[in-house]
């Protein structure tokens, strides 16, 4: 067991090193000089050269690379070209918004997905099964950004029920403590008895969470269904039924627990994907998270910001995948022997 963990964690460092290196060379070899981006197209040659020297871009590539590595290890990604702020501070201030959105999308997708999957599997070949599996297929075939806009048209424009974007009604002025607005709203409620901030945070969350959660929901529903069907075929389930165990107990206590093994893996992997997938959802709903921020950085060719953003998101992705692997090996001992 420890050997497996050590081996798996040991693989982490070379992978992260590879990611950091690849990001450096992708940006270093890409067309467009950062100095030109900062100074504008009409800047004269001397100014560009001077700035290049200041940014260390006049040094040979391998020297730049070593300096870059040293800085990245200290989480120093330099300053954003656009705002002049330290990139790491910009990321820190926006990350909670993305995490909050991803967590709520995932809760929604997991609960609904597992529920639909179980119902489909137990009522196999029923109308309900066909409808939910066809719905799941629609879910994975849909462009997320389009779904977001359609939800805005229906729920914001026509029914006027939910806000079109942002995290909080501008009427509310409050000082965020955790930067997870729903949590902050609760804290605010306990302090002042005013539920408005909390409700505003929740209503702003609904549409983005549904949009971002649709694809994982569909995938989780499909995996749960096939995994449940696999488990329900097994002898111990037949035995449980034969000795007269109530059906709900068979399904939820005996079958679901084993069927959830592959589902947990999928949930973990999807959560990692969500952090990156949030780029589209955050852009549509003006959600002030890291996805929208990274998108604007890419748009304005803000190299230090792009570098920092990609490295942070990919590192989270790798760490989440590692965590899922380890978790899976804990709950399923078979995998460790490989």
């Amino acid at each position: 067991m420890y050997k497996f963990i050590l081996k798996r964690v040991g693989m982490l460092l070379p992978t992260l090193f590879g990611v950091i290196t690849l990001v450096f060379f992708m940006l270093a070899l890409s067309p467009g000089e950062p100095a030109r981006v900062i100074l504008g197209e009409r800047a004269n040659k001397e100014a560009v050269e001077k700035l290049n020297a200041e940014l260390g871009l006049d040094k040979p590539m391998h020297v730049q690379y070593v300096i870059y590595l040293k800085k990245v290890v200290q989480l120093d990604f330099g300053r954003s070209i656009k705002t002049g702020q330290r990139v790491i501070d910009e990321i820190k201030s926006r990350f909670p918004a993305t995490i909050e959105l991803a967590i709520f999308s995932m809760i929604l997708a997991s609960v609904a997905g597992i529920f639909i999957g179980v119902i489909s599997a137990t009522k196999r070949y029923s109308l309900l099964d066909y409808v939910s599996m066809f719905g799941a297929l629609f879910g994975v075939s849909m462009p997320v950004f389009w779904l977001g806009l359609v939800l805005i048209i229906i729920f914001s424009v026509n029914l006027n029920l939910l806000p079109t974007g942002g995290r909080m009604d501008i009427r509310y002025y409050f000082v965020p403590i955790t930067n997870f607005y729903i949590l902050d709203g609760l804290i605010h409620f306990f302090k002042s008895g005013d539920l408005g901030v909390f409700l505003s945070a929740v209503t702003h969350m609904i549409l983005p969470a549904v949009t971002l959660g649709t694809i994982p929901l569909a995938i989780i529903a499909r995996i749960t269904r096939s995994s449940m069907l696999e488990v329900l075929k097994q002898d111990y389930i037949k035995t449980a039924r034969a000795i007269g165990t109530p059906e709900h107990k068979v399904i939820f206590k005996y079958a679901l627990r084993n069927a959830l093994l592959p589902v947990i893996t999928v949930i973990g992997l999807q959560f990692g994907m969500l952090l990156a997938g949030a780029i589209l959802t955050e852009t549509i709903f003006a959600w002030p998270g890291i996805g929208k921020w990274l998108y604007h950085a890419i748009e304005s060719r803000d190299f230090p910001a792009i570098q920092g953003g990609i490295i942070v998101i990919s590192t989270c992705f790798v760490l989440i995948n590692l965590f899922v692997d380890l978790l899976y090996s804990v709950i399923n001992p078979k995998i460790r022997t490989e």
Partner: protein
Amino acid sequence: MSFLKLFKSENVANNSESIWYENWQLLKKNKSAMFGLYIIIFFVLIAIFAPVVAPFDPYAQNIDIRKLPFFSWPYILGTDDFGRDILSRIIYGARISLVIGFISVSISLIFGSFIGLISGFYGGWIDKISMRIIDIMLAFPYILLTIVIVALLGPTLLNAMIAIGIARLPQYARIMRASVLAEKAAEYVEAEKSLGVGNVELMFRSILPNCLAPIIVQATLGVGSAIIESAALSFLGLGAQPPTPEWGLMIASAREFVSSAWWIVTFPGIAILFVVLGFNLLGDGIRDVLDPRLKD
């Protein structure tokens, strides 16, 4: 690996045609796969005959008929903010989306399979190095990788295709490598080796055909996701540029009118939904035929 057995008979060369025929017969019985295939054929026909089918010129602007609502005859799906017929633009958009889908999948299919084949067959340091690179690529969420590659190459349709192709390539390499490893141990490979068959011939003529099944499934499903991804890139301004009638771009350009002209946003999205649904249905069907293990 039961799907491999479907292909692995002693005399592959003589039998292969009948195996493909048999699989096709099985696939034909799968109603939802056939439905998917019909959707694809429908869109392919529309794309090919776009100039004949489309009622109007997709680029023709007319300020007198801006934002005509859904069902304003003869503009069946209405017009956009430049007075262009939405139906005609969707029809021409099918050309772009299908081409992007097929080309980007071909890129990942060809290069990914090649890498997987070489590294699985030769093993050793070739395998170690290429799999390390593949692992690093997989450490990026592919949506992010696609966006970054296209942002660096420059926002054009061609670059979008290349970016999608590269970002998806690791999956094909992994699948191919796994099949090759399983196949390499088979007796017929040993037999051919002992008969003095060369490495290249062994790889491409004996092993490759037996490893195609999972790759075909991946590629079919891949066309659908490539279409969604290219639309997403265009939506973000990183793919097709105006006035190209690309579906994602059509949705993006109508964003500011969601409150006044819902039809401009809605219909291109429905087109994407159906074409992708077609590839997903077909892909699932092909998987059921080639890999009965996964059938439920």
